[in-house]
């Protein structure tokens, strides 16, 4: 297989094949989840500044109505996911583990829950700046998990030129099938979103990269392109051999176009902008009608649920309610937001589903075994052979154990690690390598901050 990939050209040279388990949900159409008795909309669901609330306690809100405005350019507004009454503005638990400000909304049981907000807007005659503003108004952020405000990526950085929009339909994390279903069911929205991104960025081309375990999605997209060739000129769909972590933006760029994003740089440095397919599908759906992001597709799956599926979930739905709807088993041991390789374990079932939640993976006691014994590194080089960015995790791990964090950064490119966890996955000594690296990166960031502060103080004195 590896030999075949070698000869066929486009492939990810490192990384690995993780059991996919996607067949649990990949054939299930997207279905809407009912509204929970109480929705909790955090003001910070994205990277950047939190949104600023526009509503007060007791206020009635309509589904789709803006309830918080963007707190700056690096921020997005929030829209009410439901018609109902604002119960309170209070702290709520977040997936990160701390508390954050949130708007609690009680839905009206008898309301029609129609989206009454919005009005058509003519995208064809908008300037790139107007498109960026319109995208910010939708509140859309990267729906692949990063939750980075999408409009920020649609603005060409100063001095840069974007020639190609890369659309990421890899979805390489095991279990997750949201992007797969979106591509299958909303190919036109994906293409429309891609065209909007191309217009905003002045890019002539867009390439949609899809892993070859989703050939039906490739076909759906290609059919949609063929259905309207004049509008979709410049857009191509490419299937790439499935391998984890191909869905990482840097990896996909390398595989599709043979380009490398420079260390600590952005795709814009090589003339690219990368968007997730679901993100563009939302833009393609919301922008023409000037509406806001109020729900998203979430794969609820894993051995811990009896009714796995791809659910359209109102943002702010508590995890507990979503799990009840998917008929969660009693012997649940772990609830993971995202996929099993990079997803974070939920610390509480009271946290709400936010814009960045791609999936909810529920594992039972059978899957989560007691911690295996950790051995010393035996230098087997398995981690070196899978690291997609060609680091030396073996040596980095040894340095981390000795707290030599600075050396890890200066000599061994630690800060390029994007925590795909391939090294931890293959390590026969069960060394929690990626966890060491998360800690080391955090320590380095804190040290850099301290040094910056010190330099500032020195300048003032």
């Amino acid at each position: 297989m590896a030999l075949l990939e070698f000869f066929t050209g486009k492939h990810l040279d490192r990384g690995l094949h993780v059991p996919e388990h996607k067949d649990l949900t990949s054939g299930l159409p997207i279905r809407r989840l009912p509204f929970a008795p109480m929705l909790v909309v955090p003001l910070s669901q994205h990277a950047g500044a939190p949104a600023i609330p526009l509503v007060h306690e007791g206020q009635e809100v309509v589904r789709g109505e803006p309830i918080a405005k963007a707190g700056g350019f690096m921020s997005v507004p929030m829209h009410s996911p439901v018609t109902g009454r604002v119960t309170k503005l209070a702290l709520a638990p977040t997936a990160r583990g701390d508390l954050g400000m949130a708007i609690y909304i009680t839905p009206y049981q008898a309301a029609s829950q129609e989206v009454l907000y919005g009005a058509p807007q003519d995208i064809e005659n908008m300037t790139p700046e107007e498109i960026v503003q319109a995208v910010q108004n939708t509140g859309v952020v990267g729906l692949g998990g990063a939750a980075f405000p999408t409009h920020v990526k649609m603005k060409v950085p100063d001095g840069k030129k974007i020639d190609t929009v890369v659309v990421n339909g890899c979805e390489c994390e095991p279990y997750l099938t949201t992007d797969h279903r979106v591509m299958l069911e909303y190919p036109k929205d994906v293409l429309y979103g891609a065209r909007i991104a191309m217009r905003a960025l002045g890019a002539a081309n867009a390439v949609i990269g899809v892993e070859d375990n989703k050939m039906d999605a490739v076909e759906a997209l290609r059919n949609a392109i063929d259905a309207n060739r004049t509008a979709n000129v410049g857009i191509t769909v490419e299937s790439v051999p499935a391998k984890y972590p191909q869905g990482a933006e840097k990896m996909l760029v390398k595989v599709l176009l043979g380009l490398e994003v420079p260390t600590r740089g952005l795709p814009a440095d090589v003339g690219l902008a990368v968007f997730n397919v679901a993100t563009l599908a939302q833009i393609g759906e919301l922008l023409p009608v000037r509406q806001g992001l109020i729900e998203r597709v979430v794969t609820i799956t894993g051995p811990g649920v009896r009714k796995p599926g791809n659910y359209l979930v109102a943002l702010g739905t508590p995890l507990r309610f979503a799990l009840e709807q998917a008929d969660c088993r009693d012997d649940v041991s772990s609830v993971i937001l995202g996929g099993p390789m990079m997803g974070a374990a939920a610390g509480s079932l009271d946290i709400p589903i936010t814009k960045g939640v791609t999936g909810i993976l529920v594992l039972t006691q059978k899957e989560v075994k007691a911690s295996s014994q950790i051995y010393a590194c035996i230098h087997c080089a398995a981690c070196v052979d899978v690291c997609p960015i060609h680091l030396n995790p073996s040596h980095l791990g040894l340095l981390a154990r000795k707290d030599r964090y600075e050396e890890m950064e200066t000599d061994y490119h630690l800060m390029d690690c994007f925590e795909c966890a391939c090294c931890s996955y293959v390590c026969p000594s069960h060394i929690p390598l990626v966890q060491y690296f998360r800690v080391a990166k955090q320590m380095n960031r804190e040290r850099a901050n301290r040094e910056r502060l010190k330099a500032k103080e020195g300048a003032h004195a």
Partner: protein
Amino acid sequence: MSPATTVIEVRTAPHVHSGRSVEVIMRNVVYALLPMAFYSVWLFGLSAAFLIATTTGACLLIEHLCCGAAERESSIGDYSAAITGLLLGLTLPPALPLWMAVVGAFIAIAPGKMIFGGLGFNVFNPALVGRAFLQAAFPSAITTYTPAQAMHRFTEFIPTTLAIPFLKAAPLKDWIAQVRVDGFTGATPLMLQKFEHVTTDTWSLFLGTRAGSAGETSALLILLGGVYLIVRKMMDWRIPAAMLLGALALSGCYYLSNPAKYPSQLFVLFSGGLMLGAIFMATDPVASPVTPRGMWIYGILMGVITVVIRFEGGLAEGVMYAILLGNGLSPLIDNLTQPRTYGAGKRMFGKEAAAK
């Protein structure tokens, strides 16, 4: 469903694992070594059986005692001491007195491995450390070889096996004469070639019906063990490939330059301990480089040194010293061959910032 009462565990990603583990890998290496051990018992009889059992038992016992002395949990369950013991036994001549085997096992485990901190920290392959000590301490005993398939081998020990420590053992000449085997001079094919210019037929080398260390004789069984581990992804194929390639290339040059003096490259490949060394010793992950380019450099280097020692040195065999040298160099090789990171401009040569 009652999530209200559910207790959930919080762990860090990744939440799944490949299922590979050190003890499973090590156990499979033991499986891969067993055919050679059985074959050597068939070839050399009771003495080989006792030799291998002694080194393995001694290594396990010494590791257990070392762990006790260091006040930590015994690590014999990870099978690495068993591998060291088996390998040590397989690299020794079957006639070696058992007490010397125990000394070798002690050196292999105590100063060779445990003093560095146990599995994962040793600089050299422990089995070779033990063997190198024996080579230096008992040069005559470790170069005394006995014929394969001797008579009565399953009922009688080779007389030197049960020698009393520190006493001169009876010479083997009489015994060899007694068990017959025409023309056997107590030399391995390598010695015959080097000192007497008698070349052994390559096919018998490949199958292993010849004199030699207990486990090094059959290239076939060694290759099978290696292929088993490589197929199961428990061994890196690049190191043995590089080492054999290095030896093949250099010995080919020698052979072409003077076919009358030097043996053919196939003879070099299948004789002595090259196969066993390349597949089971050089690949000891702990003492070998981790970078892809480093593995090739390390392997080729060891293959070349082996041939140089065999052809230019005073010894008939050079695999052991070649691997020990390679082991010693592997941290340096690693350091000089760090992979080029994605997105980095140029290839890194060694530590860039060390020179700041």
